[in-house]
Each structure stands twice: as structure tokens, then as C-alpha cells.
């Protein structure tokens, strides 16, 4: 009887096992497929939405960026979308936005510092509670399997007869079992709490956001720009070595950063090493031919090295770029323009003289001498106190090309400059040439400015003012002329009258 029964029990037990194992296998397989099978691709829009849901709108009361309709939230959504489309990581985007709007827009509390408590505490409480309950149950002697079956049967029987059975204090020894060993008990409690804290920290680590010290990678441009500001600050303080160091750092990040190349070259030149600077600055100009700072530095370095042609080319390019005030100031501070002009003039004079000294005289135009060259040559003569030779030279050219505006203007200006209080006569002559030039080209900027000077020297302030007004009305005012007017304070003089 008993034998038969136990056989039945065994059979049932194995049936049970099979049924549950089958369920477990199918269930785990389904879960595994769900977890590891290729999910339908998550679109960028989905990712952007998930991110926006995890950030608080900075100006709203308790709404996320995804929910809010205010402009700021809309802008942030757009920006997140752009970052996502660029392939930035979630962490990167979150770090960018918390850097801008503050940590409190991140709905995920940080895993570091005091915020981590919010992650750790519930885990500690939960684990400790489970440990407490376990210790209470473990303190009781666990009934054997047969006892369980038997008493459960007994319970079912009792339940039928007595609808409200009261639970007896069935194991009075339970408490005693634990309390007799206070040290063991304390130890196991400490262990439980320690494990709980450890678990909590793990949860915080895996769930919380990255801390402040963590680096943000992937935006070279931003960091290079920041370094450049540091370098400029060191530069402004006069700490050249530090500045060079920072530029080197920038160049490591971005080897073709023109600003770093140009400024490092400039610093080298300031420390007297122009030959080292030249390769850097040549690179800079090559990479970005429109970078004004580089053009100025290149011109200065070229002059240092005697490469006059290059200096001239750089400064010409600089002038064409409509440079900002600061750089123009630097150019005049460094006397670059004078130096370059000197070079240009000497060069022009040499070529003109070569033509004039030729055995069979040819026209200037034929021998490739432009009116500009002639004027430069004349200027060269004028600055070396050979004004009359200069005037003669231009006169000779005017015979060849009597209607050339540039020549007329230049001649007028040379004459006009020779005017002094002692000999006012040339001024009237100068005026005729300038008038002629402006008749054919009323918008000639040099013509207008020079005539303003000449007229003012003839006390024709009305006319001078008109010329300046016409100059101001031009689409483009060459900086050279503006500077010229400024350096002679012509406007102030005219205002005074």
C-alpha cells in the first residue's frame, strides 16, 4: 500500500517536473528571442523623442522637453534632432544640454555625490527588509517536505471544519535561536547592509548619469576654440611661452587650425625666429587665403626675411579682404605699409629707370610699365627729395597717355603735395589735373580725396567738403585713404571752417 503510493508520488513528481521544465524552456526561449533577435530599427525620431522625454524643459513647471510647447523646448527638440542625425551619443547630447541649462534639466539623478542617495537608499531599504524577513523565517527550523505536505493537508481539512483558524505561536524557540548569538546576528546584519549598499551603488552606477568629471569627447572644434581663447588671454598677458604651449596643444587637436598656425608663427617671429615662423605662416595662408591675421603676419615675416615680393603680395591680399580695425591698426603699428610701400617704390623706380636708360627709348606702355609703377617711381623720387625728377617722369608719361586718369590724379597729387605756404602756385595747376581726371571718372576715390586736400589748401573749403561727401558716398572707401584723411585730420579742419 505504502510502496504503491510512493511509486505514484514519484511518477507524479516526474510528470510535474517535465511540465514545468517545458514551460520554462519555451518561456526562456521566447524571452531570449525578444531580447536578442534583431529589433526593428529605431528611427532617429524615436531616439530624439526618448531623449527629449528624459530632459526637463528649462522654463516650464514640471514638463519635459518632449511635452512642452514653449519655444525653448521646441528649439531644444530641434537641436536634439540635429545632434541625433549627426550621430552623437545620448551621453554627449545630455552633457551638452546640461552644461547649457544646468544639471537640473536632467531628469536622471546623477550617480555621484549626494544625488546618488536617491538610487542607493531604496535598494538598501529593500534589501535590508528582505534580509530581515529571511532572518526571521530562517530562524525557525524549516519543516521537512513530508511535514509540509502533511500539514497542508491538515490545514485543508481544518479549513473545512473551522472557518477561522488562528495561527498558533508555533515555534517559540524561533526568537531564542537567533538572539542567543548576538555577535553572529550583528555580523550578519552588517553584512546584509553592506551588500545592500554595494548593490545600491551598482544600481546608481548603471542607471545614473555620468558625473561632472567625465570627459566629453567628439567635439574637437569646441575644445580647440576654447584653447584658442586661453592662448589669446596668455598672449594678451604677455605670457608668450604659455601661449605657444596652448597653440601647440590646439595644433595637436586640429593640425590645420589656421588661427593656431598663424598666431604661433607670429609668436615665433616676435621672439626673433622668423625663419621658423615662415613655414607655419605659409601653411596658414595656403589653408585659408582669406584669413586676414595670417596675411598680416605673413607680410611682416616676409619683410623680415627680405622676401619683398611676398610681403607686397600678402599686404595687397590683406587690403582686398576688407580687414577689421584691429588688424589695420596692427599693420600701421608695425610700419608694415611704409615698409612695403618703400619696397614697392624702389622696385618700380628701378624698372622705370631701366626703361629710361635703355639705348632705344620705347614707350612705357610697351615696356610693361603701368601708370601705377610710374607713380610709385615718382613717389620714390619725391621722398628722396628729388620731387622735380619725379614730376618730370610723370609729365613724360602724360605725354604718352594724356587721358590716363591714374596718371592725372598722381600728377595732381605730386604737385599738390609740393605746395607750401611759400609757394602756393602749384596748387592751382594741380587742381587742373585733378579736375581733368575727375571729369572722366567722377568716382575716382583717390582723385576725390586728393582734390579735397588741394582745395582745402586753396581755402576752397566748400569744394573740399563736397569732394569728401562724394568720397563718403562711394560704395567702397579704401582704408588707405580713410587713414590718410584721418592722419591729416582733414575733416576736423573742414569742420572748423
Amino acid at each position, binding site marked *: 500500500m505504502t510502496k504503491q503510493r510512493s511509486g505514484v508520488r514519484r511518477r507524479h513528481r516526474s510528470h510535474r517536473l517535465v511540465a514545468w521544465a517545458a514551460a520554462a524552456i519555451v518561456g526562456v526561449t521566447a524571452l531570449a528571442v525578444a531580447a536578442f533577435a534583431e529589433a526593428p530599427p529605431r528611427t532617429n525620431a524615436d531616439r530624439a523623442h526618448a531623449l527629449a522625454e528624459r530632459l526637463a524643459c528649462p522654463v516650464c513647471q514640471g514638463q519635459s522637453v518632449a511635452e512642452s510647447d514653449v519655444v525653448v523646448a521646441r528649439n*531644444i527638440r530641434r*537641436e536634439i534632432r*540635429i545632434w541625433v542625425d549627426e550621430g552623437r551619443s545620448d551621453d554627449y547630447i545630455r552633457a551638452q544640454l546640461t*552644461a547649457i541649462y544646468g544639471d537640473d534639466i536632467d531628469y536622471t539623478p546623477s550617480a555621484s555625490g549626494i544625488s546618488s542617495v536617491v538610487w542607493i537608499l531604496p535598494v538598501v531599504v529593500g534589501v535590508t527588509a528582505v534580509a530581515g524577513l529571511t532572518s526571521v523565517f530562517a530562524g525557525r527550523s524549516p519543516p521537512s517536505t513530508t511535514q509540509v505536505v502533511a500539514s497542508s493537508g491538515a490545514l485543508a481539512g481544518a479549513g473545512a471544519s473551522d472557518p477561522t483558524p488562528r495561527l498558533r505561536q508555533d515555534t517559540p524557540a524561533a526568537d531564542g535561536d537567533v538572539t542567543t548569538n548576538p555577535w553572529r546576528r550583528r555580523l550578519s546584519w552588517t553584512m546584509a547592509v553592506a551588500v545592500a549598499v554595494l548593490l545600491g551603488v551598482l544600481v546608481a552606477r548603471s542607471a545614473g548619469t555620468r558625473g561632472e568629471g567625465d570627459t566629453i569627447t567628439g567635439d574637437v572644434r569646441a575644445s580647440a576654440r*576654447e584653447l584658442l*581663447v586661453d592662448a*589669446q588671454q596668455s598672449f*594678451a598677458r604677455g605670457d608668450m611661452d604659455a601661449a605657444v604651449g596652448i597653440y601647440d596643444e590646439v595644433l595637436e587637436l586640429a593640425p590645420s587650425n589656421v588661427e593656431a598656425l598663424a598666431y604661433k608663427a607670429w609668436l615665433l617671429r616676435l621672439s626673433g625666429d622668423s625663419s621658423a615662423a615662415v613655414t607655419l605662416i605659409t601653411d596658414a595662408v595656403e589653408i585659408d587665403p582669406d584669413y586676414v591675421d595670417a596675411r598680416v603676419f605673413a607680410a611682416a615675416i616676409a619683410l623680415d626675411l627680405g622676401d619683398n615680393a611676398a610681403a607686397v603680395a600678402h599686404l595687397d591680399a590683406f587690403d582686398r579682404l576688407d580687414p577689421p*580695425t584691429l*588688424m589695420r591698426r596692427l599693420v600701421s603699428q608695425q610700419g608694415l605699409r611704409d615698409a612695403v610701400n618703400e619696397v614697392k617704390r624702389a622696385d618700380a623706380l628701378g624698372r622705370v629707370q631701366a626703361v629710361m636708360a635703355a639705348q632705344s627709348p620705347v614707350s612705357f606702355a610697351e615696356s610693361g610699365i603701368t601708370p601705377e609703377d610710374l607713380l610709385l617711381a615718382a613717389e620714390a623720387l619725391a621722398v628722396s627729395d628729388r620731387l622735380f625728377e619725379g614730376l618730370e617722369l610723370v609729365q613724360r608719361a602724360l605725354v604718352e597717355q594724356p587721358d590716363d586718369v591714374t596718371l592725372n590724379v598722381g600728377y595732381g597729387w605730386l604737385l599738390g603735395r609740393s605746395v607750401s605756404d611759400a609757394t602756393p602756385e602749384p596748387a592751382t595747376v594741380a587742381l587742373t589735373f585733378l579736375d581733368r581726371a575727375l571729369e572722366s571718372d567722377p568716382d575716382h576715390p583717390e582723385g576725390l580725396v586728393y582734390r579735397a586736400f588741394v582745395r582745402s589748401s586753396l581755402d576752397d573749403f566748400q569744394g573740399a567738403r563736397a569732394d569728401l561727401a562724394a568720397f563718403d558716398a562711394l560704395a567702397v572707401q579704401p582704408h588707405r585713404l580713410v587713414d590718410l584723411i584721418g592722419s591729416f585730420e582733414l575733416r576736423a579742419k573742414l569742420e572748423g571752417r
Partner: protein
Amino acid sequence: MTAGASASQGEIRSSSRPRSRVIWIVLPVGVVVVLLVLMMATSDSSMDRAVDSHLLGEVAPVIAGRTTDGEWFDIDDQRGIWVIVNFFSTTCVPCVVEHPELVAFSEANAAGDAVVVSIAFDDSAANVVDFFARNGGDWPVLVTDTAGVAVRYGVTGVPESYLVAPNGAVVAKIIGGVTANGLQELITQVSA
């Protein structure tokens, strides 16, 4: 009175354990609740939270784009001069109020030591062009694709202005309207 209640009372009387055990639960709970109440009683309303800028001392975020005049503007080209980056919208009243001040500031700095750049915040090009035609001002104005700029500057409302030093770093943030004198003073103050 019920049988159950009296039964349990009987059991209670027989229980000899002192109340100390309950006290050990009640006390900490009490302390926590007292702290909680104190904390809530002393915390400020969430509505008056101060905003400050992450940008101070940092390099000014990139502003580059076509202005309403069709020209290209890039804040990096403004190195060497002061730049006022002004976020505005044509429908915001304080923006309309501050506009003449910006015009005055811009005229006072016509020589080129400082420049204003306005960035429209959620506005249409037509409105902005019309706004400048009516109220004056001839500095660069960017209207299209300004959301990204606004986010990178952390703009939360208009008007909001940032002062960018000649070395390209943001040195001040002004929430609300600006005045020409205020800006000038700010520049002197910062450069001192």
C-alpha cells in the same frame, strides 16, 4: 465589544514585553517626519528660481549664417572688437523697448570698436525686416535657423543679451532689456 476584540485584549495583557520596542520604531519615524516638515516649510516656492549662464568666461558659441541683408556673418570674424549678441523677437514688448537703446549703442560705436548682432527668437524674416525698417538699426540680423544658436547660448526668454569680449569669450549675460549706457559701462568695467 466583540469576542475578537476582547480576545485580543486578553492576549495583550499577557504580553509582558515593554513598549520600548515600538518606541524604537516610532522615534526615528517621528524624527524623519519632523525633518521632512521642516524642509518643506522652509523651501522656497519653485517659481522663483534664479537663472545664470554657463557661458561666462567661456568662448562664445558659434554664430554663423546669412543675415537679413544677405551677407555672411560669423562671430569668429569679430575677434578684436566687442560683440553684443542680442536675442529678441518682434512680438516681445521689452524687446521693442530696448531697441532704441541698441540703435544708440550701435551709432556710438560706429567707428568699429563694438558691434551688435541680433538673433531672432522664433520669428519670421518678414516680421524682422519690417521691425528693423520701422525701428531703425543696421547691424547684422539673423533670422533663419536660429534655434540652434539660441540653444547653445542657453536662451530661455527674450530679450536676452550676451557681451562677447574681443578675445571671443562671453563676459556678461543680460536678461531683459539693455541700455546703451549700461552696455558701454559694462564694456569699460570688463576691460578694466
